[in-house]
C-alpha cells in the first residue's frame, strides 16, 4: 500500500470515478484571479477541456478520495464485496493533482467523490477538509463539485456548500424498490431528505440580512443527481416521472442519466445486460422537453407504446407523429408554445422566428438561415412559400425519419 505511486493511485481512483456521468462546470459563481493572489477563474459557462473516446467531456478532475467502501451496492464497482484493487489518496495528493492540472489548463476544477470509509460523517469531513484547504490555503478559485453523502451530518453538508460550487447526491435508481433491492444500505427517504436540506440551505442564504448584506453563497451552481438506467426494469416513463418530481421538489439543476455499463468484477445479483446507449440519449432529449419546451411527462408518455421512448426517432418527433391533428403550424402566426412543439425547431430558432416575424412574413429559406432543421420541420409547418399539403398525414411519415430497416444477418 505504502509503495503505491501517485500515478498508480490516480489510475485506480479515476477508473473508479468514471461511472459518474456529470462533469459539468457551468453555473458557478463568477470570480477570477486577475489580482495575482490566487489561481483560477469561473466564468459561468463551463469549458470541456478534452473528450474521451466514450464521447463524454472531461471538464473536471473526477476522482474518488478512496475506493474503499463499506456499502454493498450491486451496480457499483467499489462495493465492499468486489475484488477490485483499492487505493486511497492523501488530502495533499488530491490538492497537488488539482492545482498542477489546473495550472496546465487541463481542467476547470475538481469533482471529488468517495467510497464510504469508517462512517459517512468521517468521509464527508475529509472531503470538506480538502475543499476548504484548496479554497483557503491555496486560494483556488476554480470550480469544485462535491458529491455529498446523504447520511452525513447536515452541518457537514452546510460547510461543504460554502466551499463547493455544486453539490450532488445520487438517487442511483429510479424507484425506491430498486434502491432497496440493489443498494440495501442506502435509504431512499434519507436521500430525499438530504436533497431537501440542500435546497433549504441554499434558499435560506438568498435573503439579505437586516443590514442589506448578502450571506456567503451556498453551492451557487446548485445541486444535481444521477440515475442509472437499464439496471432495473423501470420504464422510461417511470424514470421521467421520477426526474420531474426531482426537478420540482428540489430545484435540481440537472438529472443525469447513466446507461448501466459493464463494470469489472460485476456482482452476480445484477446481470451485465447493457441497455442501448441511444436510450440514454432519448432520455436526455425528453428531459430537455420537460425543462425547456413546456412538455409534461404524460404528454411524452402518451407517445410511447410500452412506456419506453421510441429509439428510432426523437421524443419530440414521436409526439408530433402521434398528434398530427395539431399540425401543420403556421410559423407566421403560431404562438411560442406551439412553435416549440414543431420538431426541428429549437428554443433559439423559436426566439429568432418571433423576433424576425416583426419584420417580414417568413419564407422557407428564412427559416433555414435561422437555424431550423427543416428536414424534421417541413411536414409540420407552413410558411409563406411552403405548405406540406398531404405530407403531414402520409402513412409512411415515420419511415422517412426512422433509420432504414436492416436485414438480419443469416449467419
Amino acid at each position, binding site marked *: 500500500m505504502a509503495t503505491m505511486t501517485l500515478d498508480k493511485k490516480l489510475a485506480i481512483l479515476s477508473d473508479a470515478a468514471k461511472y459518474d456521468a456529470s462533469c459539468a462546470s457551468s453555473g458557478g459563481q463568477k470570480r477570477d484571479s486577475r489580482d495575482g493572489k490566487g*489561481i483560477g477563474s469561473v466564468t459561468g459557462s463551463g469549458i470541456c477541456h478534452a473528450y474521451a473516446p*466514450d464521447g463524454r467531456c472531461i471538464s473536471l478532475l473526477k476522482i474518488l478520495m478512496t475506493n474503499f467502501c463499506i456499502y454493498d451496492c450491486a451496480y457499483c464497482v467499489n462495493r465492499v464485496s468486489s475484488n477490485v484493487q483499492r487505493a486511497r489518496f492523501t488530502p495533499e495528493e488530491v490538492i497537488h493533482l488539482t492545482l498542477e492540472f489546473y495550472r496546465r489548463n487541463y481542467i476547470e476544477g475538481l469533482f471529488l467523490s468517495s467510497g464510504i470509509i469508517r462512517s459517512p460523517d468521517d468521509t464527508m469531513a475529509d472531503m470538506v477538509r480538502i475543499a476548504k484547504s484548496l479554497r483557503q490555503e491555496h486560494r483556488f478559485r476554480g470550480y469544485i463539485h462535491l458529491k455529498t453523502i446523504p447520511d452525513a451530518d447536515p452541518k457537514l453538508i452546510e460547510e461543504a456548500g460554502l466551499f463547493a460550487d455544486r453539490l450532488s447526491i445520487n438517487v442511483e435508481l429510479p424507484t425506491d424498490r430498486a434502491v432497496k433491492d440493489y443498494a440495501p444500505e442506502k435509504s431512499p427517504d434519507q436521500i430525499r431528505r438530504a436533497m431537501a436540506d440542500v435546497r433549504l440551505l441554499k434558499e435560506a442564504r438568498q435573503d439579505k440580512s437586516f443590514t442589506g448584506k448578502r450571506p456567503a453563497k451556498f453551492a451557487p451552481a446548485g445541486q444535481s443527481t444521477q440515475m442509472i438506467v437499464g439496471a432495473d426494469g423501470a420504464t422510461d416513463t417511470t424514470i421521467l416521472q421520477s426526474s420531474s418530481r426531482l426537478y420540482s421538489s428540489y430545484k435540481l439543476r440537472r438529472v443525469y442519466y447513466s446507461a448501466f455499463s459493464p463494470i469489472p468484477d460485476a456482482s452476480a445479483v445484477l446481470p451485465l445486460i447493457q441497455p442501448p446507449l441511444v436510450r440514454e440519449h432519448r432520455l436526455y432529449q425528453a428531459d430537455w422537453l420537460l425543462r425547456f419546451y413546456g412538455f409534461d411527462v404524460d404528454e411524452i408518455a402518451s407517445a410511447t407504446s410500452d412506456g419506453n421512448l421510441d429509439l428510432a426517432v426523437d421524443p419530440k418527433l414521436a409526439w408530433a407523429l402521434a398528434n398530427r391533428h395539431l399540425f401543420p403550424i403556421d410559423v407566421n402566426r403560431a404562438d411560442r408554445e406551439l412553435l416549440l412543439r414543431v420538431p426541428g425547431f429549437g428554443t433559439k430558432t423559436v426566439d429568432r422566428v418571433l423576433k424576425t416575424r416583426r419584420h417580414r412574413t417568413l419564407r422557407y429559406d428564412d427559416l433555414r438561415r435561422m437555424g431550423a432543421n427543416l428536414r424534421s420541420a417541413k411536414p409540420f409547418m407552413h410558411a409563406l412559400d411552403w405548405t406540406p399539403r398531404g405530407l403531414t398525414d402520409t402513412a409512411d411519415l415515420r419511415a422517412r425519419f426512422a433509420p432504414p430497416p436492416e436485414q438480419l444477418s443469416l449467419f
Partner: protein
Amino acid sequence: MYSIHLPEIGTFDAWRDKARALLAAAVAPEDVLWTCGRDSPDLFQAAGPLPQGDRTATASKAFISMANLAIWHRDPERFSRLYALLFALQSDQRLMSDKADPRVAKLTAMSKEVSRDKHKMTAFLRFREVGDRNAPRRSFAAWFEPTHLICEPIAPFFAKRFGDMDWKIFTPDLSIHFNGNISFAPGQPKPPIADDATEELWRTYYRSIFNPARVKTRAMQSEMPKKYWKNLPEAQLIPEMLAEAQARAQSMADAAPTLAPARAARVSERLRAQQAQHSENADQFTTSIQGCRRCSLWKNATQAVVGTGPLDAEIMIVGEQPGDHEDLAGQPFVGPAGQLLDQGLAGAGIDRSRVYVTNAVKHFKFRANGRQRIHQSPNRTEIENCKWWLDLEIERVAPKLLVALGATALESLTGTRHDLLNCRGSLERTPDGRPVFVTVHPSYILRLPNSERAAALSNFTDDLHKVAALLQPDSPLAAKPGIA
C-alpha cells in the same frame, strides 16, 4: 475610392474609429478598401486623407457585440461586410433583429465561428512548466494554432484565470506574454518547449476515465475535431484506447462473478448492526409513519410530516396537509401559512410552543409543473387513510380542544363534509365526542387580494381568541374536560 489599413493589434478600436469617420462623411461601402496587419495595402490605391463630415453615426449594442467577434475572423472581407451592415443600419436600426437578412445572417455566422474558436482555445490550450517550480511566480508556456485571429480578444481570459503565474502563449499570428500585465509580440513558428512530467499523470487520467464499454467516437470528434489533436498531449492515446476498447468490454462481460473478499462479510455485518442500533433509538411513531404506504401520496413526497409540540398540550391544531416548505423541512406550519398562524397565535396570546400542531394528511400532495410544485387538495380516500395516524396523535396528546383549520381538517375530524363558512367559529364534535373548534386555514388568507388580507387576519386572530377563552377555567369546556 478610399484605402484603409488597420493595425494587427487594436484592430477593433481602429476599425470603429475609421468607420465612424467614414459614416460622418456618408462614404458608401463600395468606395472603401480595407486591409489589415501584414496584408499589403492595395498597390494602386494610395492612402489618401479621409473626407470630413459631420453626420453622427449610431450603432446598437447588439451590432457592437457582434462586430467585436466577427472582426477577428480570418475572412479578409470581414471589415467591408461589417461596414456595409453598419451603413445599412444608419437608415434602419431595426435591421439587427431581422435574423433572416442575409447580411445579418452571414455576420452572425462569422461571429459564431469566432466565438467557437475562442472557446476551443480556452479548452484545448495546454501549458508546460518552463521555469523553476519553487520560484515566487512559476513560469509556463504553450503553443497553439487558432483558426481565427483571436489572440488579442482571448488574452484577458487567460490573465484572469492564471493571475499568479507568468505565461507565454505562442501562435503563428501573435504571441501573448503575461507577467502581471499582458503584452503582445509578433507570431512565430512553433518554439521548442521542454517536456513536463505532469503530462504523464494527465495521460494516465485520460486513459483511466475512459469507459471502454461505451465507444462514441463521433460524439468525441464533433466536439474535439482532429485539427486540435496534434497539440494535445492526451490525443495520441486515442487510437490505442479505441483498439483495446472492445476486448476490454468483452472481458468484463465474460468474467465470472468472483467470491467476495473475506473482510466484506465482516464490514457488512458491522454496518448492519450500526444501522439497526440507529433505528432502535429512533421514535417508534416517527419511524412507522415514514414507512406508511396506505395510499400512494408517499411516492412523490419527501417525507411524512408528523405533528410537533408537547405531548401534554391542551390545544391541538389540525391543518390540511404539509406544503412545499413543510415537506422539505419535515415540520408542520413552517412556510408562509405557518408564519400567518404564528401571527394569529401571538395576537391571541397563545404560546405556540405549548400547542401541538399537525395536519389531517401527512404527505404533501402536489402536481409537478416545471420547477414548481402546485398544491392539490387531498381527496376523501386519502383523508380517511391518514385519519388512522391523526387518531394516534390525538390519543397520544389527548388535548382538551381540537382546532380544525379549514375544510379538510374539519372533514377528517368530524367525518362529514360541512360548509366551512357556516360553522366557522362554532364548536363541533368528533364522533367520539371531542370538542372541535372550527376556523379557516391560514393559506386561505394568503390567497385573498392584498386589500382584504388585514381584515381576514384579524378575523382569524379573533377566532383564536375564542380558542384561548374556551380554555379559561370558567368556560363550559373546563367543566367537562376532554370527552364530553
